[in-house]
């Protein structure tokens, strides 16, 4: 009733808002709410709703993880890596190489793999991405930032072309101790069929939740009678991805809030100073770079391992810049910002236009769009009839998406160069840096819990 009560509520709310997790959850609630509400208002089908939520979650997950990994490179260490896709590609391709079943065990695949279990493949993929990072780091980290940028983007293209080349399309490797060989390869330009067991179902099986999963399918089957399985599958996979984002977040927060993270920050600010204080900056840069690369490799694996197939041309440099936009939206240097940037990018810039197109087409059924720019623009000029032009624009949403992204990027650089959260203060120390209580005149704030030492 009274104003003090109100102030108390506002204060409590402000304190709640200060927690990073709350910001992220609130943003997700807004995004999902916006998707759901606009869908319901326009009478989108339930199946369509669930599908769009699932793919939204998927892209929030992958862009969140990628932005977090890139934030370690750029936001924390100041390493200008524009070869993100290269590490993703190595991750998924090595994972496929290790985990695809042996050639000739039936199925449509042109080449086989080593037939090892999925977790081994995932680890191998991450390790390979980290090793590639090490190889890139060896010469490049000694150079200034822009040279690293050139080396990384060149590397990512080299990876793509190597995977496209016929040399690696298929070859023989020994797979037993007695030296028997098996046909493996990367499939060249026609791509690689990922014919290992479904990773999500395998995971659910391992943790012993198959029963629960089946019941969930049955439950969803009541509201979506026709073939509920793929919907549940993609929804659950999305949730798993969000879990991975949480793990990345935890890992990178701990990395940042430590003496290690402090040295990374000092390298970003002025490497000579770090060296003058006795820090072997090459070691720190290499470790940070390799960790980020491994995380990018894992993100590549998570993005593609459920897709059935992978082609080298998926890994065009464009994708790297998507991750950069996500990071810049959120604000480089902040883990919370990275996740939020990833979510906003996925919801608004990446999935948004397509969702909008689907929504409008399915609700208004506007009919055929003009096939080219001429027929689209001439009615507008001759009869002041904007309809064909609007239809044409709607039909070209995929292409226009890149234009929109460019405009947003320019706007951000001018108006919010520090990202959504503005100037972020994520202190690089394992403890709160308040004055120790025993001495000094000023009262110290209460020691903020032991959340860091667990």
């Amino acid at each position, binding site marked *: 009733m009274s104003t003090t009560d109100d102030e108390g509520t506002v204060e409590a709310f402000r304190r709640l808002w200060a927690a990073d997790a709350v910001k992220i959850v609130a943003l997700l609630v807004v995004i999902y709410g916006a998707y759901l509400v606009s869908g319901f208002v326009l009478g989108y089908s339930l199946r369509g709703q669930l599908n769009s939520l699932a793919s939204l979650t998927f892209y929030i997950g992958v862009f969140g993880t990628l932005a977090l990994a890139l934030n370690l490179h750029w936001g924390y260490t100041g390493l200008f890596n524009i070869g993100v896709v290269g590490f993703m590609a190595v991750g998924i391709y090595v994972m496929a190489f290790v985990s695809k079943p042996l050639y000739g065990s039936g199925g449509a695949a042109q080449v086989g793999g080593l037939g090892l279990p999925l977790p081994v493949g995932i680890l191998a993929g991450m390790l390979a991405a980290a090793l590639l990072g090490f190889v890139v780091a060896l010469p490049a980290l000694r150079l200034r930032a822009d040279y690293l940028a050139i080396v990384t983007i060149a590397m990512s293209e080299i990876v793509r072309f190597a995977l496209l080349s016929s040399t690696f399309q298929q070859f023989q490797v020994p797979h037993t101790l007695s030296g028997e060989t098996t046909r493996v390869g990367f499939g060249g330009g026609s791509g690689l069929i990922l014919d290992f067991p479904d990773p999500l179902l395998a995971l659910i099986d391992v943790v012993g939740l198959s029963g629960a999963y089946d019941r969930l399918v049955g439950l969803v089957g009541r509201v979506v009678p026709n073939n509920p399985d793929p919907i549940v599958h993609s929804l659950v996979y999305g949730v798993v991805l969000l879990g991975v984002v949480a793990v990345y977040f935890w890992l990178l927060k701990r*990395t940042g809030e430590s*003496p290690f993270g402090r040295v990374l920050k000092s390298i970003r600010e002025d490497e*000579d100073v770090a060296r*003058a204080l*006795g820090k072997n900056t090459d070691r720190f840069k290499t470790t940070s770079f390799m960790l980020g690369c491994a995380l990018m490799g894992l993100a590549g694996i998570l993005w593609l391992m459920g897709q059935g197939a992978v082609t080298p041309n998926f890994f065009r440099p464009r994708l790297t810049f998507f991750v950069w936009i996500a990071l810049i939206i959120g604000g480089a240097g902040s883990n919370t910002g990275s996740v939020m940037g990833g979510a906003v990018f996925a919801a608004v810039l990446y999935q948004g236009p397509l969702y909008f197109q689907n929504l409008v087409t399915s609700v208004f059924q506007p009919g055929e769009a003009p096939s080219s720019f001429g027929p689209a623009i001439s009615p507008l000029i001759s009869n002041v009839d904007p309809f064909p032009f609007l239809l044409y624009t709607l039909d070209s949403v995929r292409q226009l998406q890149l234009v929109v992204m460019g405009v947003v990027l320019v706007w951000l650089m001018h108006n919010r160069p520090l990202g959504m959260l503005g100037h972020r203060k994520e202190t690089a120390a394992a403890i709160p840096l308040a004055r120790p209580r025993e001495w000094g005149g000023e009262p110290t704030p209460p020691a903020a819990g032991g959340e860091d030492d667990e």
Partner: protein
Amino acid sequence: MMSDSITRSRPDVTDTPLRVENLTKRFGGITAVDGATFEVERGTLTGLIGPNGAGKSTTFNLITGMLSPDAGTVTFDGEDVTDLESYEIADRGLVRTFQIARELGEMTVLENMMLAPKGQRGERLWRSVLPVARRGVVEQETELLERVWETLEFFEIEHLAEEYAGNLSGGQRKLLEMARALLTDPDVLLLDEPFAGVNPTLEQRLLDHIHELRDQGYTFLLVEHDMDLIMNNCRHVIVMHQGRILTEGTPEEVKSDEAVIEAYLGGDV
């Protein structure tokens, strides 16, 4: 014990921790440092003076491994450190500050200070991340924090602790830089024009700090333009001119040296 590595350890060695012999550096056709030879005695405040372009800063860069010399050796605590990387030299206790204060602007004063100490466990990634190992890191951070606050108080900049270093004034940055360098437990501190751009009050405060620290046993080598300041505060002065050591000795000796007067008042250029 970890505390050994982060508290002061002072190996007992010779009375001249820093020896520079015949140091030479050429940039293209210019010989910036030309056969410089000198020693710095333990527990002293030694001044290195000379007109602009005399090669003082280059000498500093050569000693601390930021540049590699074309000839000559640098010996620190009896060890030849000429070819070591700058971080290895700093790690051995020969630490420098910069002519233009190089604070880490986007880090707070506290972060700047916490960065400096040597032998921090948490600089290993796995120790900082893995749950049980992190406890040791937190423990050490708590000890470091206490030292950091003590040092901040010593330099009377504790009120700036939470501030971003980039927001400090020029003089405050100089204080921060010296405080930060001290936290590495150096044996010898090389101060490159610590008073440039510092107002007289702060200058006096910095000098007081330096004298107090010298009394505690630290060794200083001080680059400075300002003849008077050096003359009044150093017991031993080295004069450089055009890359060479012109002369060295007590302030009185140096002041009355003809060559020095000529170099400063301009003779041959």
